[in-house]
């Protein structure tokens, strides 16, 4: 998931990435591995779990003089390489500090 905040002029104000997936090593060193031929067991699992919501709170501090931000949240599925992306949802919100 990539959350991006941009000013009205398009300038990027901040970007946060969250990666949800099981993470395995070969249990002989501490390096994470991809590929069944290398992996032996999961040591961490940040993946989406059945019947459980994955919640995040992401904060962007705005620079002086900026009163508005366009926020985009992109959720996609990465297969074997970051280039193999399957878009799932894209949500955009205009957020203003002025009432």
């Amino acid at each position, binding site marked *: 998931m990539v959350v991006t905040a941009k000013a009205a002029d398009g300038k990027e104000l901040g970007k946060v990435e969250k990666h949800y997936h099981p993470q395995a090593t070969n249990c002989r060193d501490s390096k994470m591995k991809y590929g069944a031929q290398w992996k032996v067991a999961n040591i961490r699992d940040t993946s989406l779990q059945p019947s459980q919501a994955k919640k995040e709170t992401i904060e962007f501090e705005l620079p002086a003089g900026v009163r508005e931000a366009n*926020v985009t949240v992109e959720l996609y599925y990465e297969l074997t390489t970051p280039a193999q992306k399957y878009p799932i949802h894209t949500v955009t919100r205009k957020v203003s500090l002025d009432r």
Partner: protein
Amino acid sequence: MRFLKLILVLLFIAVPLVASADKAKTIDELAKMYDSSSCKGCHEGIYKQWENSHHARPLMGVKGGLMLTPLAKAKGTAFSPDDPKKATLKNYPCFKCHLPQAIKSAEDSVAVELTEALLTAADEKASDDAKKAAKAKVAKLQITCIVCHNTNAIIHKRELGEPKDGVLYSSKAVASHPDGKYKAVEKSAIFKDSVYCGQCHGLGPNFDNEQAFQCANLYGSYLHSYIPSGATQTCQDCHMQKGDHLIAPNWNDDKGASELLAKAISLDVQTLGYEWLLKAGTHIPKVVVNTKITTTAGHRIPDG
């Protein structure tokens, strides 16, 4: 007595020969033994779904890749053969799920042929024709109708025995099955149950191999996260609706895969703009983004 000895000696020699003759020595022979093209005549729709499925290309990875290449390369992995010509079935523990018929019905020579094909397909110096031919050879190795509806159809072998020759297994019995080889269809107790898919879609580390390795964890996630939540759907309920043998996702179909993911995963986004007062007189303009992702899947995402 001498005659009896002679008979015993002959039997001793002949039995391994018979057993060996039953096994495939080449990729072509193995593909022919498990060929299910005759199913297409009567089950055309299902056959087309299967042809587009990952079960039809279990050694090909996604979008034409060859997922076993690292294992074929000398010293490429702990499983790799030192010499491609001496490759054995043991060099490919992935066969347990990606080609179960090889364990049952192939000689080590099939592993040698596969290793050579994988190396040719990955060889930068090989001609395009040679690479194409090597890839086509690997593509012949498929999880065919026979593998699911016979080879892997029984998990209670102590009670029910091995799958019978000439019999297919399915969710319901068919009294007369008009096929030259498979003339009967018997009902399998597990065909509508997640445990059937769980045979390959993984619990975690494979400790039954001399070198432990881990592929899919999906069935483990189903058993230990989904079932404890009180949910009751099976793999087939979601992935084989109306008997669909595509068993989506099909990662070669970008649009279809995205649509399936969007159906199973929801994203809620809430935002807030305000000025945070950290200390008196210093307001910090801030945007807060709250995201909530939920899934209807019966397993962790991602997994396989």
